[in-house]
């Protein structure tokens, strides 16, 4: 039964139609609004022309010839300066240019206003040139709309993937597994399979195996009777032995040896991660601005730190809280919690955190609220990643972790796009309330996936012993230390390059919107490539290989920033784009492979995977926090180009150390 093909067909058909309909709808909207935009622009130009005409008419009223009116050019220049939509204003009389003010002679169209003399006869005209900037603004609007459509399509894909898997692929597969269990155990029990289409098939099997089972019982009875009849006669031990052996053969068929288990697919964590990250990061485009607004209410912190530092405190507090929460939830009494309980708790904490953010009145409230949100994030990411690891095979774990990375990146991408629009249309606080509302959908997905009692921490993952025991194993495990160090440096370079260095590198020549568009390339790479690149990474040696290849690529791209002269904005844009794409490719393969390698270390085999993964993820956050600090320090001494290059060199060194320490890693036959 090719359920997978059918689920894929379902997904592709609906996605295709959704994409077509969204593109057509967007095109229709753009056409409609663009024409209105042009009408408004022309009307405003005309009104401005009439305003100028009114001002000029004071002089004309006194019979002063138009050409003799004083300081008209200065006046027109003053107006043009405050009107970015106009490229020039000309006053033309008898086809001669009398007065003019111009930023540029390029225009997409002209608007004309007539000047009437004292006797209401037309004596001249004012021509206002609509600047190319209006067209460029339209195109930027179209580009931003395309980004919205892309974000919505990514959201659509994640939802369709979940529904196709949960309601088509898995039920079909479970029905086949149930059928095979019935056939193997020779029982009519269909294990509560809810597939309508398979109902008759399973009933047919049930009837057949029931008949077979009855025949087997009948045979056993007949053999018993035969055995008794032989016993009544002369002692015939061997004959009785013969009969008993047949009975045993028959009885073996009647024993249920196979246990049916509902299928729990690791990709079912994706919509939970995607929607949660979407909700958790809707504010990321304006958090510092919101913090700045809150600083208007003085607190005890106001005198202690500068405004710039205070604006960054909610972000710093959040990152520190995430790191600490991961350690607490991964090692304390929370470590062996059932996933459903843990994720529900995280949603509750996040909900409280978002509401608190929305109603916060000063910076202290916001910092506390963000700290609560951080604990929610820590818990959910720990358990979702653990879920993927627990329900993947050794071969497939990299592939499914790549899916987790895609969902994470997708949530981040969509949150930045959508959060800005919601904040623009409503206000900052509404965004937090909307984030809290989105958690309801996360809970629906969580209930659908995790409420199943079969979803419990895998026995091998459950942490054995205390944190001290884990630490004792860790410090003796060269591979575990190597991969942890590699993970910290990877995150440091990632955050330091993407979120710190790129904006500084580009800010002299590019606007914030353009910088954001270039940075988006990272998100797009991490959304589209991970599953494709990790599809064939099944063995440890392959994981080590892809880490080496991708890290070297990224390292060399970053190092090249030292040597290349960036004379023009085009070269800068190309360099930044290539850097972000290389970063995206590298992270797409590195993040899943790092976890795979971690799971194969002796530490994990000794103490289970839960605590090591929690500590690893916590240290990753430390690496993320160090990124801007390290790059900032390098940039202050050597400039941003060299700082990027030195970051690349550090990355290459990190890769070499990783290779030296981990080159003998291979798949263990006793998998975790």
């Amino acid at each position, binding site marked *: 039964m090719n359920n997978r093909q059918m689920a894929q067909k379902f997904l592709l058909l609906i996605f295709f139609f959704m994409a077509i309909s969204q593109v057509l709808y967007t095109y229709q909207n753009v056409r409609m609004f663009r024409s209105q935009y042009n009408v408004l622009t022309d009307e405003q130009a005309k009104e*401005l022309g009439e305003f100028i005409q009114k*001002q000029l008419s004071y002089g004309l009223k006194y019979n002063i010839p138009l050409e003799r009116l004083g300081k008209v050019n200065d006046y027109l220049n003053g107006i043009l300066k405050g009107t970015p939509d106009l490229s020039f204003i000309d006053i033309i009389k008898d086809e001669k240019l009398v007065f003019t003010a111009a930023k540029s002679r390029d225009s997409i169209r002209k608007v004309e206003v007539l000047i009437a003399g004292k006797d209401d006869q037309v004596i001249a005209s004012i021509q206002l040139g609509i600047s190319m900037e209006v067209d460029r603004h339209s195109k930027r609007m179209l580009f931003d709309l395309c980004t919205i459509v892309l974000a919505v399509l990514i959201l659509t894909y994640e939802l369709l993937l979940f529904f196709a898997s949960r309601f088509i692929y898995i039920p079909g597969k479970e029905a086949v597994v149930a059928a095979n269990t019935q056939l193997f155990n020779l029982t009519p029990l269909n294990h509560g399979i809810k597939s309508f289409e398979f109902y008759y*098939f399973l009933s047919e099997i049930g009837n057949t195996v029931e008949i077979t089972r009855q025949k087997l019982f009948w045979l056993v009875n007949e053999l018993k009777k035969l055995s008794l009849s032989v016993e009544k006669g002369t002692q015939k031990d061997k004959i009785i032995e013969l009969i008993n052996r047949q009975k045993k053969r028959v009885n073996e068929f009647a024993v249920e040896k196979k246990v049916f288990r509902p299928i729990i697919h690791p990709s079912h964590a994706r919509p939970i991660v995607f929607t949660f990250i979407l909700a958790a990061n809707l504010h990321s485009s304006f958090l510092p601005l919101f913090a700045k607004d809150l600083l208007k209410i003085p607190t005890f912190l106001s005198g202690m730190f500068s405004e710039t530092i205070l604006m960054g405190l909610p972000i710093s507090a959040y990152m520190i809280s995430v790191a600490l929460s991961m350690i607490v939830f991964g090692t304390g009494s929370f470590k062996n919690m059932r996933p459903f309980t843990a994720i529900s708790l995280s949603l509750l904490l996040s909900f409280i955190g978002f509401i608190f953010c929305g109603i916060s009145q000063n910076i202290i409230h916001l910092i506390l609220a963000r700290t609560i949100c951080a604990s929610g994030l820590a818990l959910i990411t720990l358990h979702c990643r653990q879920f993927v690891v627990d329900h993947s095979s050794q071969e497939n774990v990299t592939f499914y972790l790549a899916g987790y990375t895609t969902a994470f990146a997708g949530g981040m991408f969509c949150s930045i796009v959508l959060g800005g629009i919601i904040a623009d249309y409503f206000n900052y606080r509404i965004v937090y309330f909307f984030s809290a509302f989105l958690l309801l959908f996360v809970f629906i997905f969580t209930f659908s996936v995790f409420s199943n009692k079969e979803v419990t921490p895998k026995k091998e993952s459950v942490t054995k012993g205390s944190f001290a025991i884990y630490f004792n194993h860790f410090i003796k495990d060269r591979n575990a230390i190597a991969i942890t160090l590699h993970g910290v440096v990877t995150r440091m370079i990632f955050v330091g390059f993407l979120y710190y260095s790129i904006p500084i590198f580009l800010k002299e020549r590019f606007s914030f919107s353009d910088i954001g568009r270039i940075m988006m390339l990272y998100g797009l790479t991490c959304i589209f490539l991970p599953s494709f690149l990790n599809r064939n990474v099944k063995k440890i040696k392959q994981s080590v290989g892809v880490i080496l290849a991708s890290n070297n690529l990224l390292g060399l791209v970053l190092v090249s920033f030292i040597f290349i002269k960036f004379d023009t904005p085009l070269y800068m844009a190309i360099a930044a784009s290539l850097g972000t794409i290389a970063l995206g490719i590298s992270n797409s393969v590195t993040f899943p492979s790092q976890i795979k390698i971690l799971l194969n270390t002796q530490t994990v085999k000794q103490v289970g995977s839960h605590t090591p993964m929690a500590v690893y993820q916590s240290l990753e956050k430390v690496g993320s926090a160090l990124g801007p600090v390290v790059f900032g320090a390098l940039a202050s001494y050597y400039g941003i180009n060299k700082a990027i290059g030195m970051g690349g060199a550090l990355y290459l060194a990190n890769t070499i150390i990783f290779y030296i320490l981990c080159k003998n890693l291979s798949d263990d036959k006793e998998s975790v």
Partner: protein
Amino acid sequence: MRENLFRLKLRTKVLLITTVILISIQSFNSILEIAFLYNHLESNSIKKYYYVGNVIKQKLEKSMAFGKQLESLNFSRLLKDTIPTEVENFYISDSDENILFKQFEEKQYSNSFLLDFTTTKNNMTYQVNIPLHNKSTKTIGNIVIIISNAQIRDRLYKLIKEAVINFLIMIGIILPILYIILIVYIDRPYTSKIKKITQRFRNKEYESLDLEGIELDNLVAAEALIEHISTGNWLNLDLDKNIENENSITALIESMSQDEKDTLKEIIRDWVTIKKNENSSKNGKK
């Protein structure tokens, strides 16, 4: 049969999922796009007041260029025929929000005058703020233009209405087409395939079912064993050595004495007769 009622057909599931996703995602997209475009158009609609406000700003700042104070300017003369007639009100204030000039005395306005280039809005009006600077670029006052949003909103709401109607038309067209395609390409092939598999199972075409992932080895082995025992073959002294697990039984029979073998022959004869009769009666009943 009752159990069927609690199971959703694939067709129902597919159509339900499609409807929910299409409507919710398209609505979400529609809301985002309309909000995005509305914001752009709204700010564009207000732009002209910024242009006019800037012209007034330049005029006033020019008048103060030679040391005159803002409070001492003759606003009525300077701003004659300059203030757009459609505005709700027009104010000039100093940096302490004291109103120095008001276009319409009878109208009150209580919001604060922000000393930034910014626009704020409430339910009824937009407020455009343009700061006034002296020669040393210090902010000394504010131009505040209050515009009723009724006209702007009416214009924009017409566009929104058209966008919503387009959305409903699109859903109305896409949904039925998608339903038909999903039924033809997903539901029917899947349902027919399962029916074929069920029929093949009934017809005991076990080899073809193996290709579909249905594992019938155990059932086949059980049926073979039932056949083997119920037809008395297991009692046959000339044993078929290909049958599984027969080696130990072969050894057992070969170790029997002649008396035991004779008794076994009698049992075989009786068993085979009885079982043959029983099997034929069972087959007859089928």
